[in-house]
């Protein structure tokens, strides 16, 4: 069967169409690759462009006098580019790096999976010494290099719980803020986290073109930018007071919060046991963290803002103040110390307000509370209690109790001020009276406050009726206090009512029979109030709040020592040492200081025999 040559000529068109068709397919394919998608473009950029991030210097932390608290220190990460590594003697490398060989191999595999061409970290945060040793051997291992990065260094190891941690961003951080990349560091807790935006600054970037061997070939300077350092954070802390307070509380559990009453600025902020924040940087972080987290005294727990305790006797002053303001008692009101209804201590039979505070007379404040919850003679005892509680809770909350105190401190707890619905929930509506919950009248029972609340109470008493929300930040980057920080709050008690309280609190310290006599300081007349809070079968918590000097107060503070015994035994002398240190810059009571510093649990020998 022969085809006619005319038919065969037609085949030219078929072949031509094939040529055209293939050309068209190629053009469409080119269109799809070059025009309709940026997939390949991005891929090429990932291969050829390397962005070197120029990390900005993180803002420093200073104390109120400009003393450096937290600074930046260089740290060295060992980086690996798997492609350049070739066949490596993992046994030798593992012994140089002091890591398990298996662990090393798995890290190398992980790096390969991330990228064969780009550097990923093999060992993080080598110390300068480890770095110096390693750099001698580094030449034997192609593909290994050192990346310098900046870590935080707490200069004196102070206030670690409140300053918080600066460490590697986790998956969650990366998802939340795309500014962070794998391996970047950020503030994870405390002030480091709270002021991350201000501290971190703006990174600069340098663009390089790299060749297939990851050598930098040229720079694209028009896109580059310089890093802008972060803002320095000036805290309200007084580094000397802070250091002294941490030293005094060493070996104890408890908290100290000291405020400047006129400004609400936190002068010292201690939760004991404390730890040196520098432990949580470097290669040993994991181990250090585990030992802190598993310590029975919970050093990671910031008792100053998160420890909720019953305030004890120091709360009696609040009771006296609101009762006076409401006209329920006057400073001259005398109440019999009837020990049948509630226990008391010391020799007294009937006290006025001042003496009731000095003696910490329980029946007195029981009666005051009873009167506050019986303001409606026409109602029965259930309604009186409920209406009275509503009135009472309002007034207590104005002292900041049951609130977070608004000063934007990291991790604050509000504590608890029970109100009528609280008791309704427990006992049922109209099933409770004053008799049911009288123990809150003397600062026990359901009341829960933090050491910060107690220090704030000292400031309120010092200021005679108002406080500035306690806060920790004085200045950010020279721009002053952040807006809205430290509102002026009036507690709704006239200044005149504070006079008898001040008298009483001075007597607590200066009266030879006062519970705070061990806190007496020569040449400084100041006011204080002890508290001794029961803690089940364990020794009592030792509590003291004070402000000094009485006229024109400079410092208001609370000291809380867990399971130490009476307030006058431990908390009061600690407070006196701090006050003297702060006001005069020196400590004259050396015996007192030695006794505190040398103390170890059990602090109250009475409890030594108890199981």
């Amino acid at each position, binding site marked *: 069967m022969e085809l006619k040559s005319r038919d065969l000529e037609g085949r030219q068109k078929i072949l031509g169409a094939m040529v055209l068709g293939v050309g068209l397919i190629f053009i469409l394919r080119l269109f799809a690759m070059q025009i309709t998608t940026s997939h390949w473009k991005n891929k*090429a950029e990932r*291969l050829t462009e390397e962005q070197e991030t120029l990390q900005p210097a993180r803002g420093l932390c200073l104390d109120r006098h400009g003393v450096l608290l937290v600074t930046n220190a260089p740290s060295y990460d060992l980086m690996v580019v798997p492609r350049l590594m070739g066949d490596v003697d993992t046994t030798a490398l593992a012994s140089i790096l002091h890591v398990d060989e298996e662990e090393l191999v798995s890290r190398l595999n992980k790096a390969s999976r991330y990228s064969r061409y780009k550097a990923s970290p093999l060992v993080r945060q080598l110390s300068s010494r480890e770095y110096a040793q390693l750099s001698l051997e580094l030449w034997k291992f192609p593909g290994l290099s050192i990346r310098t990065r900046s870590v935080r260094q707490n200069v004196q190891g102070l206030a670690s719980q409140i300053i918080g941690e600066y460490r590697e961003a986790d998956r969650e951080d990366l998802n939340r803020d795309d500014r962070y990349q794998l391996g970047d560091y950020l503030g994870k807790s405390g002030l480091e986290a709270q002021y991350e935006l201000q501290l971190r600054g703006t990174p600069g970037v340098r663009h390089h073109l790299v060749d297939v061997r990851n050598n930098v070939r040229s720079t694209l300077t028009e896109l580059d930018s310089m890093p802008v350092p972060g803002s320095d954070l000036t805290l309200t802390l007084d580094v000397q007071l802070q250091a002294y307070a941490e030293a005094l509380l060493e070996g104890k559990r408890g908290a100290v919060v000291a405020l400047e009453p006129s400004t609400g600025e936190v002068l010292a902020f201690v939760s004991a046991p404390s730890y040196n924040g520098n432990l949580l940087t470097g290669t040993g972080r994991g181990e250090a963290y585990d030992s802190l987290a598993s310590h029975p005294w919970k050093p990671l727990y910031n008792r100053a803002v998160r420890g909720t305790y019953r305030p004890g006797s120091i709360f009696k002053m609040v009771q006296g103040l609101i009762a006076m303001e409401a006209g329920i008692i006057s400073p001259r009101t005398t109440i019999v110390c009837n020990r049948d209804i509630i226990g008391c201590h010391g020799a007294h039979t009937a006290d006025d307000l001042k003496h009731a505070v000095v003696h910490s007379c329980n029946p007195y404040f029981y009666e005051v509370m009873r009167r506050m919850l019986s303001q409606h003679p026409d109602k029965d005892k259930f309604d009186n209690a409920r209406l009275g509680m509503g009135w009472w809770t309002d007034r207590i909350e104005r002292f900041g109790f049951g609130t977070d105190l608004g000063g934007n401190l990291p991790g604050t707890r509000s504590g608890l001020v029970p109100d009528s619905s609280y008791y309704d929930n427990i006992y049922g509506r109209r099933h409770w009276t004053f008799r049911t919950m009288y123990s809150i009248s003397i600062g026990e029972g359901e009341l829960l406050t933090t050491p910060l609340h107690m220090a704030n109470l000292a400031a309120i008493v010092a200021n005679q009726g108002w406080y500035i929300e306690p806060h920790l930040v004085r200045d950010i980057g020279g721009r002053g206090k952040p807006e809205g920080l430290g509102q002026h709050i009036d507690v709704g008690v006239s200044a005149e009512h504070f006079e008898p309280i001040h008298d009483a609190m001075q007597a607590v310290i200066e009266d030879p029979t006062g519970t705070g006599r061990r806190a007496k300081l020569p040449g400084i007349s100041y006011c204080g109030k002890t508290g001794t809070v029961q803690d089940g079968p364990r020794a009592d918590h030792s509590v003291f709040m004070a402000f000094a000097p009485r006229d024109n107060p400079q410092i208001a503070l609370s000291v809380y020592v867990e399971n130490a015994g009476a307030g006058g035994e431990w908390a009061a002398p600690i407070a006196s040492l701090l006050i003297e240190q702060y006001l005069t810059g020196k400590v004259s009571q050396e015996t007192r200081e030695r006794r505190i510093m040398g103390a170890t649990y059990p602090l109250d020998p009475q409890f030594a025999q108890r199981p």
Partner: protein
Amino acid sequence: MSARNLRLTAQLDWTTLGLVLLLVVLGWLNVVSATAEADVVWDMTGKAGKQLMWMAVCAVLMMGLLAIEGEFFIRTSVIHYALVLLLLMAVLVVGKKVGGARSWFGVGSFGIQPSEFAKTATALMISWFLSRDGRPWHTLATRLQSMVILGLPAGFILLQPDAGTVLVFGGFVFVLYREGLSGNVLLVGVGLLVVGVLTILIGAGTSEYPWLGEASGYWWFLVTFASLGSLVLWLVHEATLPRNRKRMRRWGSTLLVGGLIFSAGIHWGMEHVLQRHQRERIHVLLGIDVDNPDADYNIRHAKAAIGSGGLLGKGWASGPMTAYGFVPEQETDFIFCTVGEEWGFLGSTVVVGLFVLLMLRVLVLAERQRSQFTRIYAYAVASIMFMHFMVNIGMVLGLAPVIGIPLPFFSYGGSSLMGFTLLFGILLRLDAERFSVLR
């Protein structure tokens, strides 16, 4: 002499020559760009300079070719062919081994690749053979002899081994098609391609079989293929007129059995003949996941280079992918990546367009010949160009497997440039003589 030259310049197809010159110049610019900054790997003056020298040599060669009477090539076809066969045999023995293949004669710092000249010689030979009187295509002898003429050089090249050039020899099927080969052969070729691709795609996975458990998915494919084929065969049998049935049955069963054997062969070949990296290349092309992250290294980078060009490209000698060594073989087989990256979609389209124009022009030249020799030869030129064009650009665009084969006139390399100069020089001379041929 001068009158003769005048006639030659008047009859010469300047369109073709102009397109060729344009491609050579564009190609050289890209070679310069691809090798200019890669001084870590190559000496700069080396490649671009050498290529310039080769271009000068080829210009002289082209002028020489145009000065030779066409009749000379027709008469010496057999000698060229025989000479090339000898060279191809010799290179297997004394050739220099480069990249696992023995396809080069080393002459000083230069190398010569006889397979580049084999294409021209084979084109001359098949044209001479088919254009001789009394050798009609439809006789079995002619067909078999044509197969031998094409198969001999292809076989030697396969031994080197140089799969790319063998594939180019496959392009002669288009020449034969124009000369009378049944179009069904092309259709069967396409059909086999489909069967082959399906075999590889399905064979690469595993399936769960009742009672037998998990095994290669290929058996499932084979059973489906066989039963579907039989069903179609039976349907066709039922639907056709009784007098056609016998012929249909013969053809149908031949196709089915052939397809099954082909498929089994491909499957066996994939598993047992190909080496791992070759199998992975094919798998990568077909989009099958490969464990080895380096398997698609070449093609991934080639595509990234081209795709990153955008509409207008990054500008001549400013593409970091090609400049900094990300694309392998970027001045030879992967030269089109430089075009894509630096000249963008517009530039690439222009280059593709120039190739298409050149091939279409050669087809036009072919059909205007009175000489059967010239026509067949022109088709051979077009087919060789077409195969190079299709496989090379298809490869860098990720549409064809990675097979080393240069882009005509573009890729760096003296042998390739000289081979294509020969191919086109002879064609242009023969075409210029088209009015003086009586046959």
